[in-house]
């Protein structure tokens, strides 16, 4: 069994950023993503989970390191000013390198 190093980029943000974010993921070349609703608190206030439009989502995407870099830098330039958002990367090891 061979595992390969990849980056897991995690983005927590308001649900409104969902569609622009999906577009960005496609643009930087991610081959998939996983998404779920979360509650949260941060510098821009608490986000409860009632009104869908104001809820939080967490998006997790596994990408090769260069894509992770591109993704994070575009998030910084184009998204951080506009949306309540936190983004970070983690080192992970995957099977089937060619999938990502």
């Amino acid at each position, binding site marked *: 069994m061979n595992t390969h190093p990849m980056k897991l980029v995690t983005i927590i943000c308001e649900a409104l950023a969902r569609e622009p974010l999906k*577009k960005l993921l496609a643009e930087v070349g991610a081959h998939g993503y996983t998404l779920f609703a979360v509650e949260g608190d941060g510098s821009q206030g608490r986000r409860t989970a*009632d009104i869908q439009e*104001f809820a939080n989502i967490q998006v997790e995407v596994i990408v090769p390191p260069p894509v992770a870099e591109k993704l994070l830098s575009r998030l910084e330039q184009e998204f951080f000013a506009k949306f309540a958002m936190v983004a970070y990367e983690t080192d992970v090891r995957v099977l089937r390198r060619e999938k990502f």
Partner: protein
Amino acid sequence: MQIDFFHALSANLLSPAVLFFALGIVAALIKSDLKFPEALYVTLTIYLLTALGFKGGVAISEAGIAKVILPALTAMLLGTLIPLWTYPLLRFGGKLRPVDAAAIAAHYGSVSAVTFITATNYLKGINEPYENYATAFLAVMESPAIIVGVLLGKMTLEKQSSIFNGSLKSLLREAVFGRSVFLLVGALIVGALCGKVGMDKVEPFFVTPFQGVLALFLLEMGMVAGQRLSDLKKVGPFLVAFGIIMPLLHGCLGVLLGKYVGLSLGGTTLLGVLAASSSYIAAPAAMRLSLPEANPALYLTPSLAITFPFNITIGIPVYFALAKFFLN
């Protein structure tokens, strides 16, 4: 007349819907751990909009589209125009940044479906008939002011970055195909196509329990509004006053227009309510996407924590009293 008004007011304040709304505010204030699941909130919204649209559509099929067009266009025009005077008032009277003034103007030109539903509830409670097709006014009044407000705001701002270039197009798309307008208009068309025959089939689901569902929903809305009350300090006295005075002015205007297009007492009241109400779901969502530079506390809090509770409790009977006054 005065006695009449206090009668009308207490009929509203002691209705289950408004009392459950108050209970929701209490829950928020005492930080109760009562919480509606998100799925329930969404379900109640879907139910209320679908039922409302369907009933409206059946009413149109009975009344004929001809009768609906003139008042609907009037309602739409009113929504379009409201931002044009609220913007300068906020900008120069309230000394707000242009982008914030534009965002708030969009909210007060747009409408609140829940306020509208509560008003129909109120009219039903006092046995005052109204044009059921008034739902069509609600449907056409949601978007125009949002578009006008965003345009006003955009004119004061620089160019947007790549991902958001299509934002104006997507704004228009959202205005026509957005969740709430889509459901309302869609159910309206379904209702218009089915007519009375269709209504007979689904009445026990879409009509009979409607008022009870509204009461449950207002319990949740009370919690949502109540959680915002702590933000009131952030908005300042000008916006607090704005959130009560503008609805009264717009309510008057709506009532007058309702009279001139020949609506009944009930329908006139509803047009007043629509004009007076301000959006707290569609408009904020549009602002976050299309005018992200505007400050949410400044537009959401007055609309959700002042105007909405004011209209639900005191506003509705006031607009009814105004309609009565002008129609006599």
